[in-house]
């Protein structure tokens, strides 16, 4: 329990977090669900969250602007810039914050590996500095209000 590993599918090494999950769907479909606005809005964020997408230009240099509406009525603005788009295997983007909110900078790389009709998704989050990480901590601190939802979901996950 050195705080380096908190669960088998989550690793923290300094400024990096890695999550993996296998989805029972071909990677073309999973990639689509990540890159087409009408699909993304259906699942992004925990239960109780809704997402409004203002623009989503999935190509290198393209911008994705959206607002997450928390179940407690709090809005979270997001601005993402795509760095790398390799259909259907890889997506790299930077969270840059929005003009009206504190900028939060971190890079995410999502890889989609096909495994006999299933998809192993790996999400790697790298924070530029500890200070940035700290800012994200504060942002997510605001998500505390959603904890009940998360708790219920956790139960659900445990029963799966």
């Amino acid at each position, binding site marked *: 329990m050195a705080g380096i590993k908190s669960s088998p599918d989550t690793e923290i090494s*300094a400024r990096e977090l890695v*999550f993996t999950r296998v989805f029972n*769907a071909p990677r073309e479909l999973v990639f689509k669900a990540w890159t087409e606005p009408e699909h993304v809005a259906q699942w992004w964020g925990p239960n109780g969250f809704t997402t409004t997408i203002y623009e989503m230009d999935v190509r290198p240099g393209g911008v994705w602007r959206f607002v997450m509406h928390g179940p407690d009525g709090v809005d979270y603005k997001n601005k993402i810039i795509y760095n790398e788009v390799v259909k259907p295997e890889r997506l790299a983007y930077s969270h840059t914050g929005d003009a009206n909110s504190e900028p939060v900078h971190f890079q995410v790389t999502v890889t989609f590996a096909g495994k006999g009709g299933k998809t192993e998704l790996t*999400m790697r989050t790298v924070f530029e500095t500890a200070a940035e990480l*700290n800012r994200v901590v504060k942002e997510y601190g605001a998500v505390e209000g959603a904890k009940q939802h998360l708790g219920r979901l*956790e139960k659900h996950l445990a029963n799966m």
Partner: protein
Amino acid sequence: MPPDHLSSTFAALSDPTRRAILARLVSGEATVKELAEPFEMSLPAISKHLKVLERSGLIARGREAQWRPCRLEAGPLKEVADWVEHYRRFWEASFDRLDNYLRELQRKDKKHGRDKEQS
């Protein structure tokens, strides 16, 4: 806990030697000399790492003996673990929704057959 504290904890954890030292301290107190053993490093170099860990509150050092044994302090590590847990839950929850959504899409796509994973 003031937010800056968490960022100093992350900074302290960013070094592999310091993480190894913490991992060693999980199994109990140790002196600087004992901590230095597995590393090809001088005692002063190890002491520097220990100072960083001590400043961030990750370890405490005894006062009773002149070799001042080091021990792990659970508080800051727990803060980090809690935060990671929070972020992980956010994504677990999203992935869970994505999982359901993908099932839904596939059901719509292929109404003819392969319905057995509905459970």
